[in-house]
């Protein structure tokens, strides 16, 4: 029986790849679109994004300066993200305020929940009531925590770079202030003195700087809910996006082809030969899976070559071959099940065609194939996670950026497998309830 299954699958795969229109649509078009994205954003550029939603929990009480004024470094950091409403105070941070949408939170737990729900990109916690005091004295470092969901591709890295830019700035000011007076006193006392005294003062200064630098007054700590941060690479994002989108289109075409076999009576003809129904379905499934695999592999190879030609230096899909292979297998499996379900739900080829176009577009939009989706409001935030596009794109992106190895995409692989199994079981159930295939 396996000969027949393979014959059916092979017939479908060769028919698809011999069809010039199909190849243009399913292979050439995604390559061209990826290349356009590559040209538009350069290799490794950024795309414009919606303001990143950030929560700031500021526990810093500040210190009272000899003049009676209060100095709070925590307050300054908070203002970088949360506008005070006073134009004079907000002006230096205008650029940051365009990029982010910061809110002061009293309750860190609530912010944590919202990150888990996908409503927030990150939580910045400015640590301890004596944050400023510690930072100035150098007795213990002041800490800034960033908590974020690495499922998001851009938001957290934006927040991270802003926070580190600000804390670095603060650190240099503090260092200069702390070291400055001491160094001047030493130098003053030794003016006109012998070279040995100057050398020893300089050595002391160097040692002090090193020790202070080693214990940076403000330490930035990032806590990732899942992994690590990364900077956004448009092409690394869009190449898998397009590949997966067009692979779901191909699955739609396969679903239509299943219905066409019935309308053209080729299915009925097969069933008059000594070939059982399940062998037919097995062959169709294998054909869909094989077509999807071939398409993904072609797209990975072709976009890599095109990116090379366009002058890209670092690899487009990453170097972890095993992780890439497993992601390809998993994402094609999920898409095959989707195609099968569409075939099971539609009565005619025309219906299958319509359903599959809608499914591919909606999944593409929700899953971030067109625009990287950072956050959907409230209850909708979990929607992208139901799509194979979401997990596939993120998985490939993580592997491509080298941030995640095989273990890092295990969640993605699992999610794709679950989506595939659920859709597969649903379509089997649906097929079993149909009077005819």
């Amino acid at each position, binding site marked *: 029986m396996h000969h*027949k299954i393979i*014959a059916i699958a092979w017939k479908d795969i060769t028919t698809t790849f011999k069809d010039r229109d199909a190849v243009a649509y399913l292979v050439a078009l995604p390559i061209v679109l990826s290349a356009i994205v590559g040209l538009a954003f350069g290799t490794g550029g950024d795309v414009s994004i919606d303001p990143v939603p950030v929560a700031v929990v500021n526990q810093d009480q500040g210190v009272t300066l000899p003049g009676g004024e209060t100095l709070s470094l925590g307050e300054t950091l908070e203002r970088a993200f949360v506008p005070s409403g006073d134009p004079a105070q907000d002006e230096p941070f205008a650029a940051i305020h365009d990029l982010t949408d910061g809110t002061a939170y009293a309750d860190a737990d609530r912010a944590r929940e919202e990150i888990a729900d996908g409503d927030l990109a990150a939580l910045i916690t400015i640590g301890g009531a004596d944050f400023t005091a510690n930072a100035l004295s150098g007795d213990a470092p002041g800490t800034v925590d960033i908590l974020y969901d690495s499922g998001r591709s851009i938001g957290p890295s934006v927040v991270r770079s802003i926070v580190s830019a600000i804390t670095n700035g603060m650190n240099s000011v503090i260092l200069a202030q702390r070291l400055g007076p001491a160094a001047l006193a030493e130098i003053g006392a030794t003016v006109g003195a012998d070279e040995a005294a100057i050398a020893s003062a300089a050595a002391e200064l160097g040692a002090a700087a090193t020790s202070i630098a080693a214990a940076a007054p403000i330490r930035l700590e990032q806590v990732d809910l899942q992994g690590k941060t990364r900077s956004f690479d448009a092409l690394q994002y869009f190449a898998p996006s397009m590949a997966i989108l067009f692979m779901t289109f191909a699955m739609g075409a396969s679903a239509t082809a299943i219905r066409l076999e019935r309308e*053209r*009576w080729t299915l009925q003809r*097969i069933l008059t030969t000594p070939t059982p129904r399940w062998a037919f379905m097995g062959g169709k499934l294998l054909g869909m899976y094989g077509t999807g695999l071939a398409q993904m592999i072609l797209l990975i190879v072709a976009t890599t070559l095109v990116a090379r030609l366009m002058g890209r230096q670092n690899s487009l899909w990453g170097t972890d071959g095993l992780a890439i292979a497993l992601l390809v297998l998993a994402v094609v499996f999920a898409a095959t099940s989707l195609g099968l379900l569409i075939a099971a739900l539609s009565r005619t080829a025309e219906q299958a065609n319509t359903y599959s176009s809608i499914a591919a577009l909606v999944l593409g939009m929700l899953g971030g194939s067109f625009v990287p989706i950072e956050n959907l409001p409230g209850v909708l935030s979990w929607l992208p996670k139901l799509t194979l596009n979401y997990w596939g794109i993120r998985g490939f992106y993580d592997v491509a950026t080298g941030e995640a190895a095989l273990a890092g995409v295990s969640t993605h692989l699992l999610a794709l497998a679950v989506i595939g199994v659920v859709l597969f079981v649903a379509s089997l159930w649906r097929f079993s309830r149909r009077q005819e295939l």
Partner: protein
Amino acid sequence: MTPTTTPIIELRGLGKQFNPPDGVIAVKDVSFSIMQGEIFSLLGPNGAGKTTTIGMISGLLAPTAGDVIVGGHSVTRESLAVRRLIGVVPQELALYPTLSARQNLAFFGKMYGLGGRELKRRIGEVLEFTELTDRADDPIEQYSGGMKRRVNIGIGLLHRPQVLFLDEPTVAIDPQSRRNILDAVKALNAEGITVLYTTHYMEEAQELSHRVGIIDHGQIIALGTQDELTRTVGEQDTLALKVPDATPELVSALGRLPGVSACVRADGEDGELHVLADEGRRALPDAIRLINEAGLSLQAVEVREPTLEAVFLHLTGRGLRD
């Protein structure tokens, strides 16, 4: 070949209702046998239940009543065994249009369980038999209607079936291709293949069959050899009148003449009307009068022996193509 008296297919109280309990009853309590070596035609108008019957015999549709025994195997219980014995040529062109004839044959050959050299040899023979060798590697979509029909038939022959089902294999093709197909059916039968042939063209049934079953509204209304069937019409004659541009009004007026049981347009031939009359010669003057009154011309008249069409007219009062 001369049919034997060994039944190879037995229909036993076969019935099919689509979407029960309220759906169409397409086939109703059909029982008959087809003998080994026979060409058996199922003759009936569109919608009579021919395709549904073939579908059930070939295991494609589950009967809602009765069973069919093919070569000793029950279709409902040993469907795979039955399918090894039969070759089915569906009414539709069940082909992959972008594949060539050779590729279509190869694919379906594999579905029949053929492979390797055996498959290659059979493909060669079938292409030869259907006279498609020259165009074997062109995609089917570039073929004429007649050529597609021949590929459609060829596929059903690949595995040398004992029984061949042909469901209206000559629909919508030119006379030359139709001729080829009818000759091919006779040639296959001469090699010993039993044929179940469905059609709504009485000429085809008449030319090919050893026996004919007439089916209407899902029921067999007459069955036997042509002689047996035409005898049921009794003494009635068929008047063949050649009247170009005959109007529907004329056809129905002719059908109402005294001593006339029905009037229909003949298949194929343009302007030929068939009038089934108790006595052809008596009805002729009235017929001529009606044609003159309608302002049309009668170009030829012929009184014929009763045909299968006359049998159908006699039994149903309708033509096969009404």
